[in-house]
C-alpha cells in the first residue's frame, strides 16, 4: 500500500469488499494482529458492507476547552464592551466578517480562515447531551469515543477506530497520531488519558502522542545523544543476540515473532525516510513562519507533513488545560482574540497547502470542540448544570467580564474541509436570539461520527466483539451520516 515516492495515497477499497477479506488483507500485510485476547470483528457483522471511502486521511483540529460558536463560526448580534453592559444583551463579542462564500459570515479575527471557507462545509447545529454538571473531560470523552463515560469497557478513540478498521495508509507510519496535548503534568490528565487511548482494541491501535510539535522529530529519531551509526549498530547486535539465543527454538513462535515484528516496525519507522515527516524544521523558514503562531500552529504544519507521508488520522489541538485557551471562565473576549490569532493562519495555510498538493480532496479536515459557550446559559436552557462563570453579576463591570463564560451544549459549529464534503456549504442553524440552540437539523455526536466514519469508508454499524457483545463504531450502530453534505 505504500509507494516509493512522496505521497502514497492508497486507492480506496472497492465497495463490495467484505469485512472478512479486508481483515485477511490486513493480517497478511502484518498490520492487524488478532491475538488471543484481542477483540475480533463481530462475526455477524462480517456482512457489514463498508462504504466507499471519500477520504483516506483525517485531520481533527481540536479546539479543546469549549470553542464558543458565536465567537468563531456562528456570529450573532455583536455588542461592544462598555462598563455596566448587561450580559443578556451580549450574544457575540466580535463583529462578523464576510467569507469567500456569499452569505456565510464568521467572526472578525479569522480573516484567513474566512478566505478558505469556500472549501468547507460548515455545520452550525452540532448538539451535545445534557450530562448534568458540565465537565470538559466527560464531554471530550464523549466527543472522541462516541460514548458517554463511564463505560464498562475501555472505549476506543475515533483515531483508534480508523487505525483498527483501516490500518495505516503507509505501513511505516503510525496510523493514529495525536499532536499538542500533554498527558502528564496538566489538570485532569487522568481523565484525558482515559479517552486518548485505543481502549479495548489494544495498544497497537493507540495514539502516538506528540505533545510538542518541535520535538516530534526526536520521537522518531535515535535516542538523544546516540549517533546514527551507534543506533544502527545497537539494533543489528540486538537482532544477532536474539538469533543466537539457544532458546530461540523453544520460544513460542507466536510470542517471539510478534515481539520481533513490533521491534521491526519500530526500527523501520526510526530509520525510514518517513521519519523526516516528523521534522518541521525541514520546512523553509518562510513556510515555518506562515504556520508558527505557537505550538498549535506548528502542530498544523506537522500534521500536514504527516498526512503527506501517509498518516491515517492526526489530531492537532490547541490543548486542553483547565481554565486556559478556549476554556474561558473570565477574560473571554481577550482570550478568544488570542485564540483567533493562534488558529487563523495555520488552519487556512493547512487547507491551502493540502489543496496545493492535491491532497485536500482525499483528506478530511474537521474543526471541532466539546461544546460552545454563552454569556448567560450554563448547559442548555432548562438544564440544572451548576453555573461556572467567575462573575455571577448581571452586568459586565470590567473588560475581564466581557466574553462568553458559560458552557453551552445547545448548539455549536463543526467545520469540515475537503475529503468528500460539499464546498461553501452550510448545514443546520442556531437561533438568532438567545437561547442560541440548534433550530434546524440538529446533529448529535453519533451522527457527526457516522458522517466522519462514512467519509473515511467505515460503516457506522461496524462492530467488534468485546466480552461477547458487539461494540459499535457509533453507539448501538445507530449513527446516521449526514449524506446531504457529501460532495
Amino acid at each position: 500500500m505504500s509507494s516509493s515516492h512522496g505521497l502514497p495515497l492508497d486507492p480506496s477499497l472497492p465497495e463490495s469488499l467484505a469485512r472478512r477479506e479486508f481483515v485477511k488483507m490486513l493480517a497478511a500485510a502484518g498490520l492487524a494482529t488478532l491475538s488471543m485476547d484481542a477483540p475480533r470483528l463481530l462475526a455477524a457483522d462480517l456482512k457489514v458492507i463498508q462504504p466507499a471511502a471519500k477520504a483516506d486521511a483525517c485531520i481533527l483540529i481540536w479546539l479543546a476547552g469549549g470553542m464558543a460558536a458565536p465567537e468563531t463560526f456562528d456570529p450573532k448580534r455583536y455588542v461592544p464592551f462598555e462598563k455596566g453592559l448587561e450580559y443578556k444583551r451580549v450574544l457575540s463579542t466580535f463583529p462578523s466578517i464576510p467569507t469567500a462564500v456569499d452569505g456565510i459570515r464568521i467572526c472578525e479575527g479569522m480573516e484567513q480562515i474566512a478566505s478558505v471557507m469556500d472549501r468547507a462545509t460548515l455545520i452550525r447545529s452540532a448538539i451535545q447531551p445534557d450530562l448534568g454538571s458540565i465537565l470538559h473531560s466527560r464531554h471530550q470523552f464523549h466527543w472522541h469515543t462516541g460514548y458517554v463515560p463511564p463505560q464498562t469497557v475501555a472505549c476506543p478513540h475515533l483515531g483508534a477506530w480508523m487505525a483498527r478498521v483501516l490500518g495505516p495508509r503507509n505501513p511505516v507510519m503510525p496510523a493514529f497520531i495525536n499532536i499538542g496535548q500533554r498527558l502528564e503534568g496538566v489538570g485532569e490528565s487522568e481523565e484525558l488519558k482515559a479517552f486518548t487511548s485505543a481502549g479495548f482494541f489494544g495498544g497497537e491501535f493507540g495514539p502516538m502522542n506528540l505533545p510538542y510539535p518541535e520535538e516530534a522529530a526526536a520521537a522518531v529519531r535515535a535516542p538523544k545523544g546516540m549517533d546514527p551509526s551507534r543506533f544502527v549498530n545497537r539494533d543489528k547486535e540486538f537482532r544477532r543476540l536474539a538469533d543466537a539465543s539457544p532458546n530461540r527454538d523453544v520460544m513460542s513462535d507466536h510470542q517471539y515473532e510478534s515481539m520481533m515484528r513490533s521491534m521491526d516496525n519500530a526500527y523501520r519507522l526510526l530509520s525510514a525516510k518517513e521519519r523526516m515527516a516528523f521534522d518541521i524544521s525541514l520546512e523553509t523558514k518562510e513556510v515555518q513562519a506562515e504556520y508558527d503562531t505557537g505550538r498549535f500552529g506548528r502542530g498544523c504544519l506537522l500534521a500536514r507533513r504527516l498526512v503527506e507521508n501517509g498518516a491515517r488520522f492526526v489530531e492537532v489541538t490547541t490543548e486542553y488545560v483547565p481554565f486556559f485557551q478556549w476554556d474561558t471562565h473570565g477574560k473571554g473576549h481577550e482570550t478568544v482574540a488570542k485564540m483567533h490569532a493562534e488558529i487563523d493562519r495555520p488552519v487556512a495555510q493547512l487547507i491551502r497547502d493540502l489543496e496545493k498538493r492535491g491532497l485536500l480532496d482525499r483528506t478530511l479536515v474537521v474543526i471541532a470542540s466539546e461544546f460552545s459557550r454563552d454569556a448567560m446559559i450554563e448547559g442548555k436552557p432548562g438544564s440544572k448544570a451548576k453555573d461556572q462563570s467567575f462573575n455571577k453579576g448581571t452586568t459586565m463591570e470590567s473588560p475581564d467580564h466581557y466574553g462568553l463564560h458559560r458552557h453551552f451544549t445547545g448548539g455549536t459549529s463543526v467545520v469540515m474541509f475537503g475529503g468528500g464534503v460539499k464546498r461553501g456549504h452550510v448545514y443546520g442553524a442556531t437561533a438568532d436570539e438567545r437561547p442560541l440552540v440548534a433550530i434546524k437539523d440538529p446533529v448529535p455526536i453519533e451522527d457527526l461520527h457516522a458522517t466522519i466514519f462514512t467519509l473515511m469508508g467505515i460503516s457506522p454499524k461496524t462492530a467488534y466483539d468485546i466480552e461477547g457483545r458487539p461494540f459499535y463504531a457509533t453507539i448501538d450502530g445507530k449513527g446516521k451520516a449526514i449524506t446531504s453534505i457529501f460532495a
Partner: protein
Amino acid sequence: MLPDAVIRRLPLAVCLSFAGLTTLSAEVDFAHEVVPILRKHCTECHAGDKKKGSFSMNTRTALLEGGEDGVTVVPGHADKSKLIEFILSKDLDVRMPPKGDALTPAEVGILRTWVDQGAVWTEGFAFKQPAFEPTLRPRHPMVPPAIGGHEHPIDRVLEAWLQSKKLPTPPLADDATFLRRAHLDFIGLLPTVAETQAFVADPAPDKRARLIRSLLARDIDYADHWMVFWNDLLRNDYAGTGYIDGGRKQITPWLYAALRKNMPYDEFVRELIAPTAASEGFSKGIIWRGAVSVAQAPELQFAQSVSQVFLGINMKCASCHDSFIDRWKLKDAYGLAAIYSDHPMELVRCDIPTGKSASAGWPFPELGQIDANKPRGERLVQLATLLTQPDNARFQRTMVNRLWHRLMGRGIVHPVDAMQTEPWNQDLLDVLANHFVAQKYDLKATLEFIATSRAYQSQAEVQSGDVDGKDYLYRGPRGKRLTAEQFVDLAWRLTGTTPFKIDAGVQRMPTKPITAPEAKVGPLLAQPIWSNDVTAQRPPAAGEARSFRHSFTIAGEVEHALVVVTADNSFEILVNGKTLAKGENWAVPQLLDLAPFLKLGRNQIIIVGRNGGTGPNVAAVWCQVALRLRNNKNEVTFGSDATWEWSAALPNAKGAMPVKAAWLPVAKVPVEAAPWKKAEAMMAQMISGVPSSEGFLPRASLVKSDLLQRSLGRPNREQIVSSRPTELSTLEAIDLSNGTALTSLLERGAISLLRRPWKSSEELARWLYLSTLCRPPSAAELKVALELLGAQPTEHSTADFLWAIFMLPEFQTIR
C-alpha cells in the same frame, strides 16, 4: 413520535392483506417447511446462546415463553402472534429480521399456517444444543491413579487427560528456567547470580519445593508483586479518575496488609463486600461527577464488580437490559444492586424507568436467599456469607482459575471472567477448588499446590501461530509476558536505578523480629547526630538544613557494602558526590546498596539532613555502614557518631561542597521519643541483614503509573482488568527503542554498573546473562556480546548491551 406500541400495531393492516396468500387447509411440516425458514431468517439471533430482545426460539418452551415484547407466539392464533406481526412490518426499525431480505409471502404463509395449526414442534428438537451450564456446587472427582510416578493430584488428572488425547507429557523444564519462572511468578523479581548458581548446583531432590516455599514466605516481596494483580482486578490505584474529588477511595493499605499476612480469601472477600472503612473503596466504585447512565450508578457498579471478580459473571449487559449473550437479566443485576443500595431501587431499562422495583437477590438463590427486609449492613453480610459458603463452588473455581491462569498462562476456563464457559478439564478445576477449600481459602497454598506439580515445572508450550479458541489442547504451561511493573523493577534492580520513594501508603517494615540465625540483629552503632550549635535555647529551626560528613578508606575489592540511613525529618545521602538516595519519612529508614558507589582509597559520605515542622523542634540524622571486602571474613561497621562533622553549607547541584565550607564536630542528640526508638530498632534489623532486604527498595507496583509503565501495558484502572495484553505493540516498541524514560534509565544504569570492578567485558556479559536470563551466554551469544561491549565496556556500549538484553523476547517473557 408515536409510542412503540402504536408503531408495532400498524403492520396488522399489512398482514391482513397477505392473508389471501396462505393455504389454511394444508398440514404444515415443521421439520421440512418451518425449520428451514426459521433457520434462514431467525435463529442466528434467537437460538443457542443468542437471545436478542431476550427472545429465543431454540426450543418450543423458549418460543412460547416470549421475550421483552411479551408473548410472541400464541398457538392457534397467528393474528395474535407478534412473530407474524414483526416479520410483516414495513417499519425497518421493527421488522424481523432486521438485516437482509424480508420473508417472502410464501414463507410468511407457511409460518402463519404453522402458528394457526398450533405451532407443532418435533419433540426434543432444538435449533442449537443448549449452552453449557456450569455446575454450581462442589464436585469431588475421582483422582486417577498416578502414572509414571507423578503423584501430585494435578499431574494425575493431567496425565490421564493427556493419555486420553494421545498427547505427550511435557518434559520438565531445567532448573534455571524453573528458578526464573518461579521468582517472577511469585515475587516478580529475578534471582541474584549467586542464588541461581547455588540453586542449579544444589543436588537436593526437594529443592524446587523448598524454593517455592521460601519465595512465598517473602511476605513483602510477595505482596509487592501481587499488588499488580489485585490492583488490576479490584481497580485500585494511587491516582486516577475520581480520587481527587472524593468520588473514589483507595484500599491500598488494607490490600497490602491482607496480602502480606495472606488473609484467607473467604475472609478477604467478606471484608470487601461487607467492608470496614479501610476496605470499602472496592464496593464504593467510582462516583463520576455529573449525570451518568443509570447502568453505571454506584449500586450497579457494585453488582458488576462483585459478579465479575468473584463469580466470573458479566453483569454489564444485564445492568442495562436483559443480556443477549447469557442468562442474566436486568432483575439479576438489580438484585445485587439492591443489596448494596440504601434506598429502594426501580428497574431502569436502557435509561428508561420500567415502573418495577428491584428486590435484593443474588445470582444463585438455590444456595440461599438474601432477606430483602434486613437493613443494608446485614444484607451485605448475608451476601458475603452466601458467596463464601463452601457449597458455592463457583466462587472457589473462579479464584483458582485466575491463579492457574496467572501461573500457567491460560485459564482452565478461558477467558477467566467468563466462568459460564466450559472448562477444558472440569476435574482439574475441581481438584484445585477442593484443595482451596480444604486449605481454608489459603491463596498461597493454592499457588504452592500448582507450583509443586510437575505441570507447572514443565517446559513451556511452543505455540506456533495464533492457537486459541475452543480447540485448546493443554501442552504445558504457556509463556507469559513480563508485566510493566516486572520489566521496570528488573531494569531498576539490575542497574541500581531504583527511585527513592513509593506512592502507595503501605507498611513494608518487618512485623516480627527476625529469628533466622543469619539474621541475628546486632546493636545499632548509629547515633542520632545534629550540629553542635544546638542548645536548649536554640533547638533546630523548622526547615534547617545541615550537611554531615564522614570519610573512610577502602583497601580492596568490595564484597558487599550496605548503608542504613534516616533523618528527622528528611535526608539526602551522597556518596563520593553522587546522590544515593533521598528520604522523606524519618520513621521509615532506608537500606541501600553502597557498593556501586565506592572506590578504592578514600571515600566520603555526605548526608544533608533537613528539619521539618513549623517551628523549632528536635532534629537528627542516623547512618550506619556495614561492609566486607572480598577475601576478608571481617565485617566492618561504623555509624554516625561524635567523629562525624557538620557544616551549614550544602552541596551544590553537582554534589560538590563549597571549598571554603567550615566543618565542625557534631553533637549527639539525646533519644527521647519512643517513635525514634522504633525507627532505631528497624535500622538495627535492616543493617543486620534481614532476609529479602531488597524488598525495602521501592517497587514499580507501588508507584504511580508513568509513561514507561503505560507504554508497557499497565492499565488505566477505571475498569476491572483480569488479563493484560500479551503482545508488545509497535508504539511500545518505539518507546522502548528511543523513549527518554528507558534511555535515561539505561544511561544511569550503565554508569552504575561500571562502578563495579569488572575484570573484562566477558565478565560483565556473563554476569548480565546470568542476572537476566538465569543462564550463561552461549558461545555465539558471548561473541556478539563482546563485539557490542568492546574490549573494555564503556558507558555507551554497556547501555546498548543492556538495551539489547532487555529487548530480547527471552527477557520479556516468563518461559
